[in-house]
C-alpha cells in the first residue's frame, strides 16, 4: 500500500500545497488502492478515474500558478455516498429502481466539495435508500468490513465507512437518518459525524426521511472530519430547513481539544444506554473511554433521559411514514426503471410492477409500515404519538444539556456482526441504531469516535452536543483521540488487518 493512502486528509492537503506531492499522485494512489482491494471490500458502486484525475490536476495547476488553495482540503480524495446527486455520474441510492439514473444537477454538498477542490473518487455503496444498518440491503451486493470481511461495515453508509477503513479514501460523505454515519463509523473504527439538523443542506440528498436526514463528514481522524465539516456546512436557500447561522467553529474546537485539557467540561453518561443488550466488550471499551475523559479533566456525571427508551419505536414510525411518501416518486413515469410497459398494462399497473421489481424487501417493508402508520384511523395512535415522543426526547435533551455540556454513550450496542446474521430478523437489525436515534429525532449534533477494540473489532464512543454546538463534541473527541493514540502508541485505525491485494 502506498504511504500516501495512510496519510490523514490534513497531511495530504499540506503536502500538496507544499508541492511535496502532487494531487494527481495522491488521487492515483487511492485509485490504485481501490483497484487493488475493492473487489474484496466492495465499498464503491462507481469510480470515476478520469474526473478524479482531472479534478486533482486542476488543484495542481492552482498550486503551480501560485493561486491560493480553494479550501484547506484542496487535492484531498473523497468517497461520496451514492445518495447525493452529482452530475455526470449515476446516483442509484443502492436501488435497482435508480440503476443508471444520472441526475441533471448537483447536490449542494457535491457543489461545495467540488468548489473546495476536493477530489471525488466515486460513489459508495449503501443500504437501499439508506434503509438499513449493515449495507446488506444494497441492490448491488453487500460491502464488507475491512476489519473482518465476513462482517458488516455498518449501514446505511457502509460503503463510505469501509472505504475509509480500507484506506481507499481519507475522507467520505455519509448521511445519517437514524445513525447511518455514526454506526458505520463505530463498527469500522472511523470517525463519523452527524451535524446539527439544518446545518448541512439536504438539497440533492435523495430523501429517506426528510425531517431526520442529515449529511455529514466521515474520516479516519477527528481533525479531518472537522475540516470536511466546514467545507460542506452552511446556509443554503434551496433547502427550507437550512439554518441561516454561522457554521459552528469545529476546526478551532479540534485544535483546542488536541491540547488534551478537558477541565471544566461536564460529560453526562446516559444511564438508559447500558445493561442488557450491550456486549461486555463494548461496555468495557466505553467505560475505559469515560475514565480517559475523567483523566483529561472532564467532570463525569450520570444523566437519565427516560424518554430515550421510546426513541426506537418513534423512529420506526416517523422514518417509514416519511419514506413511504418520499419514495412514491419512483413510479416509472419520468425516470428510472420501468417494468411491464408492453401495451397491455395501465400506468397504474406499470407503477406497481416496477415498484415491486425495483425495491428490495426492506424498502417495501418500510413503505408498507409507513403507509399503515399514516392511514386514516391509525394516524393518531402511531404517527401522532411518535411526534409526541419526539417532543419528549427534545425535552430530555434540554434538561440534560442544562446540566452537562455533552452526553456520551456507546455508539451502537455491539461490534460488527456477521453478514447474514440479522437479515431474517428486522427488529434485531433495528436495534443497532438504539443509541444514535435520539439525536436524529431531536436534531442535535452527535458524532462517533473509535474507543478501542473488543475481540479485535472496533467500538465507538458517541458524543452528543446541543443543536448548533457541534464544536463541543469535536473538542471532546479530539482530546480523547489524542489521549487514546498516545496511550496505545498510534492511531487505532492502523491496527486494521492488511487486506489481500489483487494484482
Amino acid at each position, binding site marked *: 500500500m502506498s504511504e500516501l493512502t495512510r496519510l490523514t486528509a490534513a497531511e495530504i492537503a499540506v503536502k500538496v500545497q507544499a508541492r511535496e506531492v502532487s494531487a494527481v499522485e495522491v488521487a492515483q494512489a487511492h485509485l490504485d488502492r481501490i483497484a487493488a482491494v475493492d473487489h474484496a471490500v466492495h465499498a464503491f458502486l462507481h469510480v470515476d478515474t478520469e474526473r478524479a484525475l482531472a479534478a486533482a490536476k486542476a488543484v495542481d495547476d492552482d498550486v503551480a500558478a501560485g493561486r491560493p488553495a480553494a479550501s484547506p482540503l484542496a487535492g484531498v480524495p473523497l468517497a461520496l455516498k451514492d445518495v447525493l446527486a452529482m452530475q455526470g455520474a449515476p446516483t442509484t441510492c443502492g436501488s435497482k429502481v435508480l440503476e443508471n439514473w444520472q441526475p441533471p444537477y448537483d447536490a449542494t454538498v457535491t457543489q461545495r466539495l467540488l468548489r473546495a477542490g476536493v477530489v471525488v473518487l466515486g460513489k459508495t455503496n449503501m443500504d437501499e435508500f439508506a434503509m438499513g444498518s449493515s449495507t446488506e440491503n444494497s441492490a448491488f451486493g453487500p460491502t464488507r468490513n475491512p476489519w473482518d470481511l465476513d462482517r458488516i461495515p455498518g449501514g446505511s453508509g457502509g460503503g463510505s465507512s469501509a472505504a475509509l477503513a480500507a484506506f481507499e479514501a481519507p475522507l467520505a460523505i455519509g448521511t445519517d437518518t437514524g445513525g447511518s454515519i455514526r454506526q458505520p463509523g463505530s463498527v469500522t473504527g472511523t470517525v463519523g459525524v452527524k451535524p446539527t*439538523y439544518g446545518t448541512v443542506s439536504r438539497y440533492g440528498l435523495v430523501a429517506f426521511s426528510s425531517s431526520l436526514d442529515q449529511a455529514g463528514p466521515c474520516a479516519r481522524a477527528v481533525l479531518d472530519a472537522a475540516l470536511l465539516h466546514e467545507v460542506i456546512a452552511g446556509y443554503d436557500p434551496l433547502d*427550507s*430547513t437550512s439554518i441561516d447561522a454561522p457554521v459552528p467553529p469545529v476546526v478551532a474546537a479540534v485544535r483546542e481539544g488536541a491540547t488534551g485539557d478537558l477541565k471544566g467540561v461536564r460529560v453526562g453518561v446516559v444511564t438508559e444506554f447500558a445493561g442488557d443488550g450491550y456486549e461486555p466488550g463494548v461496555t468495557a471499551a466505553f467505560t475505559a473511554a469515560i475514565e480517559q475523559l475523567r483523566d483529561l479533566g472532564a467532570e463525569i456525571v450520570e444523566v437519565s433521559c427516560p424518554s430515550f427508551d421510546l426513541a426506537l419505536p418513534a423512529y420506526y*414510525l416517523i422514518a417509514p411514514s416519511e419514506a413511504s411518501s418520499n419514495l412514491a416518486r419512483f413510479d416509472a413515469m419520468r425516470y428510472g426503471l420501468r417494468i411491464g410497459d408492453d401495451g397491455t398494462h395501465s400506468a397504474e399497473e406499470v407503477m406497481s410492477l416496477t415498484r415491486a421489481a425495483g425495491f428490495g424487501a426492506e424498502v417495501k417493508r418500510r413503505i*408498507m409500515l409507513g403507509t399503515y402508520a399514516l392511514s386514516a384511523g391509525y394516524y393518531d395512535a*402511531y404517527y401522532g404519538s411518535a411526534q409526541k415522543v419526539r*417532543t419528549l426526547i427534545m425535552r430530555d435533551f434540554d434538561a440534560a444539556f442544562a446540566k452537562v455540556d455533552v452526553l456520551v454513550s456507546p455508539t451502537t450496542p455491539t461490534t460488527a456482526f456477521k453478514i447474514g446474521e440479522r437479515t431474517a430478523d428486522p*427488529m434485531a437489525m433495528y436495534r443497532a441504531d438504539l443509541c444514535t436515534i435520539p439525536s436524529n429525532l431531536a436534531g442535535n449534533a452527535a458524532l462517533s469516535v473509535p474507543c478501542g477494540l473488543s475481540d479485535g473489532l472496533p467500538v465507538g464512543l458517541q458524543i452528543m452536543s446541543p443543536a448548533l454546538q457541534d464544536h463541543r463534541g469535536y473538542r471532546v473527541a479530539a482530546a480523547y483521540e489524542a489521549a487514546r493514540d498516545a496511550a496505545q502508541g498510534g492511531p487505532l485505525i492502523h491496527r486494521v488487518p492488511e487486506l489481500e491485494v489483487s494484482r
Partner: protein
Amino acid sequence: MPSISRAEVAHLARLARLAVTEEELDLFAGQLDQIVAAVAQVGQVADQDIPPTSHAVPLTNVFRRDQVRPGLTQRQALASAPAAEDGRFRVPRILGEEA
C-alpha cells in the same frame, strides 16, 4: 396487540402501488404485525397533552423571492425518461376517474 390481516396488507400494497404475490401478503402480514407490535408502545403517550414535533428546527416563514431561476431544458428533462414523444413523457394509458 395489533393483528394485520392479509386483506389489510393487500389494501396497503395497493395504496403504495406495490404489486404483491400471495406469499408476500403472508410475509408482510407477519412482519408488519411483529414491527407494529414493537413500535405500538409509543401509543402510551397518545392521551397525554404533549405538543407533537414535526420539525427538528424551530424555523418559520422561510420564503423565496418570486424570481425566475434557470431550470432544465426539455432535453435535460426528458433525458432519463423511460419513453418520450413530442417533447413529452410517454406513459402507459392512464385509467381515469372519469368514464
